[in-house]
């Protein structure tokens, strides 16, 4: 993996793709709302969001199938307005794959190259190269209807890659695959992207997919970008409650700010006695402000014995549900206030003397820096 790839934090770096204050309306509905975004060369960029958030419209505008109502999109400093889809150095892998049913695998992959009028020998060589890349050499003569879902997905990928576009757009590339195949393919896509050095823009509603593959993720909601950041930042420092809840599992504890003490925020909540201590120095809060405290389940500790008197952030409750997942165990703990917390614990040893059981009284604690304060 490339460790120091972060052109977005380099002020001198020039973005490859720029969305400048782009709005797209369909009649009265606003699909994309005054959105600005930079995507850099060789980036694996994910547009993540629930269905109807505008991510697909954004991608279709880049491909040229939709036109911005306002604002502009540039690619390598060239304004894309008025450039038809067939003249853009951008190729797309469609969600439905859109393979041509009357052409063999080979001819599907060659289609784009033929449009460019390349010599026959060159087309054949490129098709072979692509078939090797997606490991479908032996199926070159098959028709798409004779292929499995995973094989079709590879043909679609090979067809979109064949022209070596500046930017490859992938619309829910793994949506139609089963879980196991999806995981394998995620890593394959990352390898291919890395080897070719191409810019990938992926649209997905699957946060796991986005987290695994992307250099950066843009989380979208209602036509706007809520946060653009690396997967780690999105997960550990979500900007809003929507992101915290959309990406991964999270426990939300509602409360009100009491004030600052030794650089920590003190937050009063009906779920916890005494008040909680949260270490989130970036937030600017005022007294009595309503906030949501987000804590990831794996950052909470569950224990049977009462913690020491110097412990902070202690919640008490009883075990409501236990889910054993093999690598993890999920505990659902019901607090006295009625809220249910989700706490996970890695199963580090194969045998536990006396495991925490259903209905047991337990203490749940978390460190001050394990939580994020989200302004309501």
């Amino acid at each position, binding site marked *: 993996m490339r460790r120091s790839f972060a052109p977005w934090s380099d002020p001198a770096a020039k973005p490859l793709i720029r969305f400048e204050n782009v709005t797209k309306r369909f009649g009265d509905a606003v699909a994309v709302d005054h959105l600005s975004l930079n995507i850099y060369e060789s980036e694996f960029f994910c547009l993540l969001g629930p269905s109807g958030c505008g991510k697909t419209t954004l991608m279709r505008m880049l491909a040229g199938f939709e036109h911005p109502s306002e604002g502009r999109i540039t690619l390598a400093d060239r304004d894309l307005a008025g450039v038809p889809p*067939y003249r853009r150095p951008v190729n797309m892998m469609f969600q439905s794959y*859109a393979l041509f049913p009357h052409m063999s695998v080979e001819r599907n992959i060659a289609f784009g190259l033929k449009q460019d009028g390349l010599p026959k020998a060159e087309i054949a060589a490129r098709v072979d190269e692509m078939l090797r890349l997606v490991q479908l050499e032996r199926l070159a003569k098959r028709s798409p209807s004779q292929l499995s879902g995973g094989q079709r997905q590879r043909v679609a990928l090979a067809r979109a890659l064949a022209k070596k576009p500046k930017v490859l757009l992938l619309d829910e590339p793994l949506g139609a695959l089963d879980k196991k195949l999806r995981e394998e393919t995620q890593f394959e896509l990352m390898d291919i992207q890395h080897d070719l050095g191409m810019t990938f823009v992926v649209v997905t509603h699957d946060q796991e997919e986005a987290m695994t593959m992307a250099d950066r993720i843009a989380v979208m909601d209602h036509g706007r970008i809520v946060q653009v950041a690396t997967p780690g930042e999105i997960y550990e420092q979500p900007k809003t409650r929507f992101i915290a809840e959309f990406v991964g599992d999270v426990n939300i504890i509602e409360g009100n700010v009491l004030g600052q003490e030794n650089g920590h925020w003190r937050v009063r909540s009906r779920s916890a006695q005494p008040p909680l201590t949260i270490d989130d120095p970036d937030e600017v809060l005022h007294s009595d402000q309503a906030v949501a405290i987000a804590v990831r389940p794996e950052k909470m500790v569950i224990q049977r014995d009462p913690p020491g008197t110097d412990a902070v952030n202690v919640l008490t409750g009883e075990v409501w549900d236990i889910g054993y997942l093999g690598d993890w165990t999920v505990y659902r703990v019901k607090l006295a206030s009625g809220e249910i917390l989700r706490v996970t614990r890695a199963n580090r040893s194969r045998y536990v003397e006396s495991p925490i059981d259903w209905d047991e009284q337990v203490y749940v604690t978390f460190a001050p820096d394990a939580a994020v304060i989200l302004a309501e």
Partner: protein
Amino acid sequence: MEPQRSFPKKLASSLVPAVPYLWLGLFFLVPFLIVFKISLSDPAVSQPPYKPVFEWGDVAGFFQGLDLENFEVLTSDDLYLSATLSSVRIAAISTILLLLVGFPIAYAMARAPERYRSLLVAMIILPFWTSFLIRIYAWIAILKPEGLLNQGLLALGVIGEPLNILNTETAVYIGIVYAYLPFMVLPLYATLEKMDDTLLEAAQDLGSPPWRAFWTITVPLAMPGIIAGSLLCFIPAVGEFVIPDLLGGSETLMIGRQLWSEFFSNRDWPLASAVAILLLIILVVPIVIYRDVESRRVETKA
């Protein structure tokens, strides 16, 4: 244990598939054999106007009375050959015209907003609500020298004197294209409507301008509809009688017309039957080709 089906039910389930065969046998195969038999007979001034007529007493004499004389007439007389060729030519040109007119209509229908589509289909079928004969007669009123078309064109100043369209081959083409259009449009519409629009987007995305995507994607995928529509028009057009009789001139030679005059003017039933058999053979060829194409297409799909 499997539940035993009652006997009447079993009988019913084995009879149902037999119904189409029974139908075809009774209303197609038997009449065909009768016509075939008449084509081997000789004309006679009697009732019915041919001999021999089958009698149980003289089976041998009946078979001796049959010969291929009528088919020899067909091959020796130029009239039948040129009528046949002319029919095939007119039907072929009509089919091409129908494709040229029908494809854009079907394409526009398939592209129309979904809620209008069934209305558009209904409008294509609507002319069937009026008698075919009346519609063709209406064309006489439109096409005749002092008809609607000429009056309109004269009034607009497009032409100086009336066009002579009625009683020419042009009128026959107009009539056939008009009358057969639904048979071309509906199969085309059925295939175009099923087509996935993202295929065209994919073609564009890969660098194909829309007009080229039309030839490389739309037309090949519409081929089953093109073939079905063409056959549905070509086959009946070859044997068409009413349209050339009403709209065509005396020089418009078509085999269907020839057949009619052998039957009704010359009362030569055996020769007319031979013409009918000939027509059938001509039409079997494209059907066989179609079936062959179709089965190959199904094979590659499987």
